[in-house]
């Protein structure tokens, strides 16, 4: 095969199209990027990632800036032009692309988007930004949405739930997340993995929060880290590494991972305790494939089942579980630093829908738990409505459920369960509660 060297211009065009699809069609960067970066070399793929993630992260700020630069807002059908201008402003402000290169590249892009009329608009807007940069940026300080790059509804919810911590939550949501590994303790211990990384010249350190966690300083390509092919480690944030520990599965236990894909926690449960009978369930067949791939790479075994967890009549064989992990579908507002597009994809109205889905799942799975058994409820949200309030409503309605207090030194104590806020312990935002059947 002959290489097709992509120019920066064609990568910018791909970035505009990808991010427009997030804004206009509600697709996530996670689902769009694998196809978009097909055929790009390492450098091109890195540029595409930087442009799309960066502009999504700062999009509320860039959009506020844009509104100060144009005479009237762009029409909905010109979402691509609006996104192109975000990207141009992003390159100018965050990437140190030379001013002239920004202007030239994005003016040229108008034609490639099939909108030659936008050349003048793009040219005038970007030039005006360069002329008035200082005043414009200073004027954003009064606008909380622009300043925090979070939508207004989310700021309102965060400040209601976390009156003292909400500025640091927003700040952490804009930070770049570190790469965290989970050492596969079936294969080697954390010291051996740290030695291997050090031999490969990669700066890394143990993470205080979880026994198997390693934090990589700086950028690294996961596939190139030592032992990747041999299943020596997985990539998983340290907060997510607490789930299997809290579940505390013992030899011979029957265990359910109810919303398992992509399988990080399923694999961790087995790494900690291989002698369990584990069912790894997910409603998406394609995502369940990822669970199977991860199991295979790490040389672990679990039964994978494709089903809607709450539809127990359809998949449960009537044998009770000693342990259930419910890593519930949630808003993912605790992981904005890893998935910056979430702030564009979520709507205020999603939250009550998610909360009732979470309660439904808890109630549907509870009868499957053996007396004395333990259920761990987890989300990567920071909203009380999805976390302690769901658990509270469940406890009120369920006479044979009691909460096991979390006697740990991480996170914040909630009415029920504990919350790690984003950035706290250098971790993603995560919520945990432990419920036991009496």
């Amino acid at each position, binding site marked *: 095969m002959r*290489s097709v060297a992509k120019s920066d211009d064609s990568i910018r065009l791909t970035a505009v199209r990808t991010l427009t699809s997030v804004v206009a069609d509600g697709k996530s960067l996670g689902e769009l990027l694998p196809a978009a970066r097909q055929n790009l070399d390492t450098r091109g793929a890195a540029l595409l990632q930087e442009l799309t993630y960066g502009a999504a992260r700062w999009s509320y700020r860039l959009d506020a800036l844009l509104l100060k630069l144009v005479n009237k807002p762009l029409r909905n059908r010109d979402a691509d032009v609006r996104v192109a201008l975000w990207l141009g402003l992003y390159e100018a402000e965050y990437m140190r692309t030379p001013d002239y290169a920004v202007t030239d590249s994005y003016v040229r892009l108008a034609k490639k988007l099939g909108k030659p009329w936008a050349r003048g608009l793009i040219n005038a807007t970007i030039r005006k930004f360069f002329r008035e940069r200082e005043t414009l940026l200073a004027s954003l300080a009064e606008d909380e949405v622009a300043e925090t790059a979070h939508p207004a509804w989310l700021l309102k919810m965060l400040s209601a739930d976390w009156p003292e911590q909400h500025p640091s939550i927003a700040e952490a949501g804009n930070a770049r997340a570190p790469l965290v590994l989970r050492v596969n303790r079936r294969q080697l211990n954390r010291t051996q993995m740290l030695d291997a990384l050090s031999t490969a010249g990669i700066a890394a350190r143990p993470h205080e929060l979880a026994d198997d966690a390693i934090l990589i300083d700086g950028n690294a390509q996961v596939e190139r880290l030592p032992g990747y092919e041999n299943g020596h480690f997985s990539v998983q944030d340290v907060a997510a590494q607490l789930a299997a520990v809290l579940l505390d599965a013992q030899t011979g236990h029957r265990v359910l991972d109810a919303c398992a894909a992509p399988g990080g926690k399923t694999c961790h449960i087995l790494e900690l305790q291989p002698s369990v009978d584990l069912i790894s369930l997910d409603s998406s067949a394609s995502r369940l494939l990822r669970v199977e791939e991860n199991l295979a790479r790490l040389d672990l075994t679990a039964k994978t089942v494709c089903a809607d967890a709450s539809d127990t009549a359809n998949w449960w064989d009537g044998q009770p579980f000693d342990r259930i992990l419910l890593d519930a579908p949630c808003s993912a507002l605790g992981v904005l630093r890893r998935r910056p597009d979430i702030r564009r994809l979520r709507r205020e109205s999603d939250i009550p829908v998610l909360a009732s889905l979470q309660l439904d799942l808890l109630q549907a799975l509870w009868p499957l738990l053996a007396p004395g058994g333990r259920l761990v409820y987890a989300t990567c949200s920071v909203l009380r409505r999805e976390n302690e309030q769901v658990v509270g409503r469940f406890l009120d309605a369920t006479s044979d459920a009691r909460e096991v207090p979390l006697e740990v030194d991480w996170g914040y104590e909630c009415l029920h369960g504990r919350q790690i806020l984003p950035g706290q312990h250098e971790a993603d935002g995560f919520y945990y509660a432990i419920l036991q059947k009496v």
Partner: protein
Amino acid sequence: MALLDILIYPDNRLRDIAKPVDGVDDSVRVLLDDMLETMYEAPGIGLAATQVGVNRRVVVIDVSEDKNTPLVLINPEILSSAGEGVGEEGCLSIPGIYEDVKRAAEIRFRALDRNGESYEMDADGLLAVCVQHEVDHLDGKLFVDYLSALKRNRIRKKMQKSEKPR
């Protein structure tokens, strides 16, 4: 090491289906070295034995920027694939032609390395595309086969014309 001649479309030998390698011996390793040298010289990022007129299931690939990460695939098999994406492709056997082709976005494959050891690997991005492109060669398939008949005929005519002065 020696540079090998690359067959140019529409050479019929590009349609041959290559035979599996029985054992990875020194003759295979010489072929691998020659193919790598030929690929780097071209310059290309992947080359299948079919393209140099050798009817064996042997592929070399290097998609790294610094051209220092050669990958050897003997008897490659694509085990699973997921997603899809469209990207521009070019081929050392079809000079000057670049067209969009739809392929799986992520694959898992198995192959033997230059020591005859079996390995499995997950690939996405350019590597995934390149493996699919090269495995196609071993099955006598070219990226232009994915295009419309009209487009393919136009390319064939263009290639036949440009071939004569060579």
